[in-house]
């Protein structure tokens, strides 16, 4: 599979050079692999740090900026960053009021952030962590590593980021982040696998009429293989899975997210079905995102994330944000 890269080895560094050139509001260390606000930490503000494997762009580096993350640390493709990056990111985010780690629930991310938290705590930084685990395709049981963190990560970063920007304490920002996660569920569908630059071949093969239901964001196959259907049915499958896990009602923030190689026109087709079917289930789409936010390299497919809003969360969602990938109000 052809890719617009210089080499598999340098892709993350090269992309960070591009991010740096494109966004003067970011301070980017392409070799050290950290991205933070160019203004440095905001004194007295709780810092927000996230990170994870690369290949999910714009997550997380694209969400660094006013009203969202203070710093991000991108790992190798699909590989959790190492504690050293997290420590550097923490320093870039620490305004003296403590730092919240937004951690997607994958063993690698969890372990590395744990090690980093220990190191930073030893340095006297107050660290809290929130585990994002919104993917209903994985049964959350003793027999798994727990649900994966996927689309809800964007919601957690935006809403907790707004709380932090508004001056909330570390405990309060953490509570808000946990609440967003608790109120959010996702389900993803792949029409094709993705190909990592290092391997050069798709991680799994799908036939002309096959799809994977319940995929993750690391090229792993899903809960089950199925046959291709129209957008209406795929939306129903995703919403059924979400609804079964978290009964849907009231106002919702809804994201229809592309996996990286899905044209926007198709995402809008899916969103039309999702919105209509949510209305049929008595849910009002109060806020929405349609586009590529949490991707899986060049995977074709989509995920749906639903977050049940209340007034506070809506207000925090609407608060100004200024990052490469999400911007409004300034």
């Amino acid at each position, binding site marked *: 599979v052809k890719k617009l890269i210089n080499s598999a080895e340098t892709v993350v560094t090269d992309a960070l050079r591009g991010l740096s050139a494109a966004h003067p509001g970011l301070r980017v260390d392409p070799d050290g692999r950290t991205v933070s606000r160019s203004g440095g930490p905001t004194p007295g503000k709780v810092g927000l740090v996230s990170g994870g494997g690369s290949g999910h762009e714009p997550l997380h580096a694209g969400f660094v900026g006013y009203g969202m993350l203070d710093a991000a640390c991108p790992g190798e493709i699909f590989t959790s960053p*190492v504690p050293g990056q997290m420590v550097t990111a923490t320093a870039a985010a620490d305004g003296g009021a403590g730092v919240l780690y937004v951690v997607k629930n*994958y*063993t690698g991310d969890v372990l590395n952030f744990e090690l980093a938290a220990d190191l930073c705590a030893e340095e006297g930084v107050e660290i809290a962590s929130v585990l994002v685990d919104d993917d209903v395709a994985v049964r959350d049981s003793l027999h798994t590593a727990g649900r994966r963190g996927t689309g809800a990560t964007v919601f957690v970063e935006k809403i907790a980021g707004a709380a932090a920007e508004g001056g909330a304490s570390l405990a309060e920002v953490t509570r808000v982040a946990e609440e967003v996660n608790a109120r959010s569920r996702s389900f993803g569908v792949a029409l094709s696998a993705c190909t*990592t630059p*290092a391997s050069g071949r798709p991680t799994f093969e799908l036939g002309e009429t096959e799809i994977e239901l319940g995929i993750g964001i*690391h*090229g792993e196959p899903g809960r089950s293989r199925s046959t291709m259907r129209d957008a209406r049915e795929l939306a129903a499958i995703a919403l059924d899975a979400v609804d079964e896990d978290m009964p849907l009602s009231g106002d919702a923030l809804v994201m229809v997210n592309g996996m990286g190689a899905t044209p926007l026109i198709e995402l809008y087709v899916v969103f039309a079905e999702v919105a209509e079917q949510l209305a049929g289930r008595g849910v009002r789409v109060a806020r929405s995102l349609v586009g590529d936010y949490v991707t899986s390299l060049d995977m074709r497919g989509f995920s749906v994330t639903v977050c049940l809003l209340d007034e506070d969360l809506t207000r925090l969602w609407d608060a100004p944000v200024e990052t490469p990938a999400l911007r409004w109000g300034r």
Partner: protein
Amino acid sequence: MDTAFLTRWIAGIADAVRAERDRLTELDAAIGDADHGANLDRGFGAAVQALADDPPAAPGALLRLVGGTLISRVGGASGPLYGTAFREAGRSLGSSGEASEVSLADLARALRAGLDGVTRLGSAAEGDKTMVDAFAPAVRALETAVSAGAGEREAFEAAASAALAGAEATVPMVARKGRASYLGPRSAGHEDPGAASCALIFAALCTADQGHG
């Protein structure tokens, strides 16, 4: 065994991981995210470099340096896990005034400590389809060999074949830890990449020993 032996061991692991990089990645592609080969190649390559740059004076320090390097360079699940394994093994060999020679019994104790570190951090038990399924039987085999008064070569061969058998035994298992657990029953039928790499680590003990002899 001295630091020369352990340096050979780490170099042997790095060579084996590089040689088997694609196989590890393919195992990980089947039930994970296709990076295990690259992860360990990066990590053990860095460890070899770190030992060359600043050769530690004692076996314990050497293993701790390897562990720290893996933690700071690998990322993913295997970085902290293998990193902790080597770091804890190094710690068990003592942290000050260390001996420059370690016995087979010392090494067995150290690897037991490393295994404990892995299970403490990752809370995987045998049967969960992880590196622990190769690591645990290998450590047991080593301990049995020590009890039986076996020589190094015999002990390492027992450990290596136990690790290999443990790795192969992961094929039919349904994963309960790590990424493969997301697949549920679909994870059966594939060897766990971490168990496969763990078998390489124990096999490299034999190679290091032969280089010694």
